[in-house]
């Protein structure tokens, strides 16, 4: 029985790891088929990118930084095409949705904490614990 459970969970673990990538990539491929925009065009269209002012405050003030600190260069660098994409101009939802998500997840944690205390009993641990899966 124990071995069967262990085997089942290990198989499930491997499956989740594999699916995580396979499904994720397939979904992304379908999703991007229509709305991929070349990076330069996308950045140019997005007015929120004020490129001439895009100096990194931290790096630019480091006198010793001999390498380029210009953020704008990164956005226009072809080798990074697609990496730093333009953020979709549409805004999604209000701040309340963020607070609601945080509230719900914290409530879930507190509920889990309370239920675990109620459901737990040391008396449920059985003899097999002593010798079945010891180091």
């Amino acid at each position, binding site marked *: 029985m124990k071995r069967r459970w262990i085997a089942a969970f290990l198989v499930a673990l491997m499956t989740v790891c594999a699916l995580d990538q396979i499904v994720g990539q397939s979904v*992304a491929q379908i999703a991007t088929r229509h709305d991929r925009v070349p990076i330069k065009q996308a950045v140019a269209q997005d007015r*929120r990118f004020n490129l001439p002012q895009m100096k990194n405050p931290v*790096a630019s003030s480091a006198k010793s930084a*001999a390498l380029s600190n210009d953020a704008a260069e990164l956005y226009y660098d072809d080798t990074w095409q697609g990496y730093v*994409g333009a953020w979709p101009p549409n805004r999604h939802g209000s701040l309340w949705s963020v607070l609601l998500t945080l509230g719900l997840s*914290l409530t879930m944690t507190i509920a889990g904490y309370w239920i675990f205390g109620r459901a737990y009993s040391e008396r449920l641990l059985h003899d097999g614990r002593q010798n079945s899966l010891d180091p």
Partner: protein
Amino acid sequence: LQLKQPSATEPVNTTALGEAPSWSTSEVILFLILIALTAVTRFRRLGSPAFVIFDERLVLMQAGAYLRGWPFFLSLHPPLAKLLVALSCDLFGDHAYARRIPSALFGTILVPLNYLLARRMFLSSLAATLAGVLTLCEGFLLVNSRIAMINIFGVTFAAIAYLNLFRFRLTTRMRARRRAILIIGIALGCAIATKAVISEVTATLVISYLVIILYTETVPDRRALLWQTAAMLAMVGGLMVSIYVAAFLPYYHYGWWSGIGDLISYQHWVLTGNLALPHEGPYSSPVWSWPLMLRAFPYFSYLKQDGRTLTVWCGGNPAIWWEIPPALLICGFHAIKQRSLSWSFPPVAYSAYMLMWIPVRRYLLIYDFLSMSAIGIIAIAGVLTMCWNGELNLWEPLLLLTPQIAVLIFILRLTLGLAAAAAIIALWALIARRKNLEAGRFICACILASVGFTFIYFYPLWSSMPLSKAAYLERMWFKGPGLANWM
């Protein structure tokens, strides 16, 4: 909740699986010395080089965005580690040392964490000491603790989760178990808020083992198990979501994002961003080559005017790195033989991290091996402890010795290296004929000596100490052309 309580005839046992050995004064002193040595290797000359190296540039751009609110910068990775770098810059100033303090701190914490983890996994002070020493001497962990990149953070958060998984297992007290679950939730949440995809594997792994522990070590009361499992999932899941969302709060503070929909769209953006990356890039290497460390590369290399080279090398300690596959094999063998959850953990975790990368088509760099490297160290510590105690079969010490022969050949060249290896094997065979215990200890001593020597030998490459060109080239065991290239 009203749960069925076991009747008087049902087996009842509140005995713990075993206790980690009690702390002696000498062990406490050893533990503190290890931490001090680690801190020295991580913090000494941390500001060198003063240049912004490799992906530090991306991290600093984001840190700048979080500190000053502009420019808006979106990364493929969540912001927690970058927020820590921003905090450090805010507290200690805008210079190379300050921006690397969080990495060095997390890299230092990893040593005591691995020490405690091995102590609870193998219930042995020796295993714990070995895990601590190996973590200290693994150059891959060292170099990633000395630069302002995000890789070391995820590994340290994962180690906190592993440690509490085994704390959960060793205790029967409800409060201690509940506390362990809470810490696991926080650690996994922080890991996912640092580097999401690889931390999803960590989360799946830890949660799966929690469920296995619940289901294999509890009487089959279906209802109680279901409630406990649901409660555990709610605690861990709730904390993970809370911390992940909270890490993005600066986006809302600065008005870059307006609602939760932006965070959901970001997930899509990350997927498309990853897909848009090319299959091959500079320094990229396939997953299968990582355990062999074929494509280590310099994060930074600079030729000084006096002809010496400053390098920050993204490679590991070969004496540890190449020891990981044999150690995992032996771990797996003993996991099956002893039906042991502890022994199964390193090979299962390593395989899960490895499998995750197989379907990925974007270019990959060897630093993604970091999670596997950290778990591999625990495997080596466990196996060496068995070796020291004379508990291994005859073929296992020989298997452990094989990578060290390769190290000998690279350091001493072919003829001398083979002669040294032959002498070691002959000596081992001679000792093994008399006493198996001493033969095991001899192998352990050889491996540890090799680890110590290679650590000192490669240390200048990890800590950007100036090296002459000849000394630098001598340490580059693979020079290409092709995949096997450390330059």
